[in-house]
């Protein structure tokens, strides 16, 4: 029950009780004021008088009072409703925006002030976390470059035993792996901080899909997968060519890596209802239903018992999601374990195809 209704009901109840009290009091008064000669009419008369008062004065007063009370609570609570609506719109990305204050110094204004201070503190914390990751990934790059360089130089030293060379090479491989993770992380943190400008232009998505499909076919060959381009309708979207290619490659790479031997990949691009709809379906172990909501989380890698041998850092889908959202698109992941996993990406299509 809303506070407004509750308060109005309480108010009405109080009014009724007071009316009863008034009625009882006026009944007594009237009874006493009557002449003794009229005593035999006393009860009847007093009852009648009181009834009249209650009916013609009391009831309208209660109705008016209740209506007034309802209106008052409504007015008093309006700022709370407004505050609720404003707070509803707050999320991680607009914490820096402040709620408008009335500045009239009342309790609600004070509440708004405290609330604003709280979101500002939260915003500060978020900001610090973002900056920390941003700096961390940047700071990690240089030592990695240095380590890689030093190892490579060591490799050129004379009189190395084959075992030493092997060790150096394996270290270089690990550094490369680390560099890839740092790279992907730095991309995501810069994206979070809005530091990655996208160059929007009109892009023929079907061209990009065909191009990435050619790469997918090549990648799939060594896993003996059947790759199939089921549809590739002409459709243009407004987008950043590099990022879109990155998205396509990330998704097709996953479709290859998390497939089963002799499995299949089906890619399709359709244009419908003003949307460009890309679907990449692959066979393979897939992801259990309860874990599916987490696939876009950073460093999420599914069931560890299935794919700890697969190279990857668990940032591919996060990057794909960022790219889709940055293009006003959407991305969905649906998987039926051991059968089919489908990733669907939708972008707003532009105009008629020339």
């Amino acid at each position, binding site marked *: 029950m809303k506070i407004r209704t509750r308060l109005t009901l309480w108010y009405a109840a109080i009014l009724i009780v007071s009316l009863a009290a008034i009625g009882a009091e006026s009944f007594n008064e009237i009874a006493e004021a009557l002449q003794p000669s009229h005593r035999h009419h006393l009860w009847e008369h007093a009852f009648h008088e009181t009834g009249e008062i209650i009916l013609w004065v009391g009831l309208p007063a209660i109705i008016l009072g209740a209506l007034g009370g309802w209106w008052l609570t409504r007015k008093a609570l309006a700022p709370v409703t407004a505050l609720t609506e404003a707070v509803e719109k707050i999320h991680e990305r607009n914490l820096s925006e402040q709620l408008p204050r009335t500045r009239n110094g009342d309790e609600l204004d004070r509440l708004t002030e405290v609330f604003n201070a709280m979101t500002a503190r939260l915003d500060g914390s978020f900001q610090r976390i973002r900056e920390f990751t941003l700096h961390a990934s940047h700071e990690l790059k240089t030592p990695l470059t240095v380590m890689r360089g030093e190892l490579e130089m060591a490799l050129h030293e004379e009189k190395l035993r084959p075992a030493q060379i092997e060790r150096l090479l394996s270290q270089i491989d690990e550094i490369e792996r680390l560099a890839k993770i740092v790279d992907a992380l730095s991309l995501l943190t810069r994206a979070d901080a809005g530091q990655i400008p996208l160059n929007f232009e009109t892009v023929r998505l079907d061209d990009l899909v065909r191009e990435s499909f050619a*790469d997918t076919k090549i990648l799939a060959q060594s896993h003996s997968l059947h790759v199939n381009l089921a549809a590739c309708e002409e459709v243009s979207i407004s987008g950043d060519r*590099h990022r879109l290619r*990155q998205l396509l490659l*990330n998704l097709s790479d996953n479709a*290859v890596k998390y497939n089963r031997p002799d499995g299949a990949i089906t890619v399709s691009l359709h244009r419908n209802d003003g949307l460009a709809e890309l679907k990449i379906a692959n066979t393979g172990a897939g992801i259990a239903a309860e874990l599916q909501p987490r696939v876009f989380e950073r460093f999420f890698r599914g069931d560890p018992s299935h794919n700890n041998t697969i190279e990857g850092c668990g940032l591919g889908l996060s990057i794909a999601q960022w790219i889709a959202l940055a293009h006003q698109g959407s991305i969905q992941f649906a998987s039926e374990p051991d059968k089919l996993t489908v990733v669907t990406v939708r972008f707003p299509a532009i105009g008629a195809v020339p």
Partner: protein
Amino acid sequence: MRVLVVEDESKTASFIRKALQAEGFAVDVCHRGDEALAAAAHSSFDGIVLDIMLPGRDGLSVLKQLRSQKIHTPVLLLSARGAVNERVEGLNAGADDYLPKPFVIAELVARVRALGRRGGESKSTLLQVADLTLDTISHRAQRGGKTFDLTAREFRLLEFLMRSAGRICGRMSIIEKVWDYDFDPGTNLVDVYVRRLREKIDEGFESKLLHTVRGAGYVLRE
């Protein structure tokens, strides 16, 4: 050959210097953009390795200033990966080559050496390495009287490797220049393509041309 290395991170600068010196280059090192500008204006170098992120003055502005002062020393830009805009801007501002960070040091040395040969680089349409030829107009590759069919991507890969014949090409450079990806795709795309290309141009021939340099990348040479 005398080279100016402009890199603010002293350890990176130091191993670049060591690597270049080991190959017989004379190396000067600057850590700041404004110092680099002064150094390049006062003495003549055969090449400059220029980092984009620099204190004092950033690499791009150093480059523009040099070119506006009619100093045409060849410049190799070191760019952060993913910064396509910087790279395009760099080439427009007159950089001769670029290398994404983190780079393979052997590749950097090879590129610096190539800087000295700039201008003489062949833009010819018929490329040749040993008995392998590539016609860049008809996209036809031939070796020992055998003609190969190449897909568009294989052609671009082979062209890139042949134009850098004898020089190590890191995976990231190949990804950037053949695929035009400014990100690490995290796949073994390059290796798969090189394997396919190798099957075509090396299989059945006595001498192999396409070599893997472990820990670095690939090189096409006799």
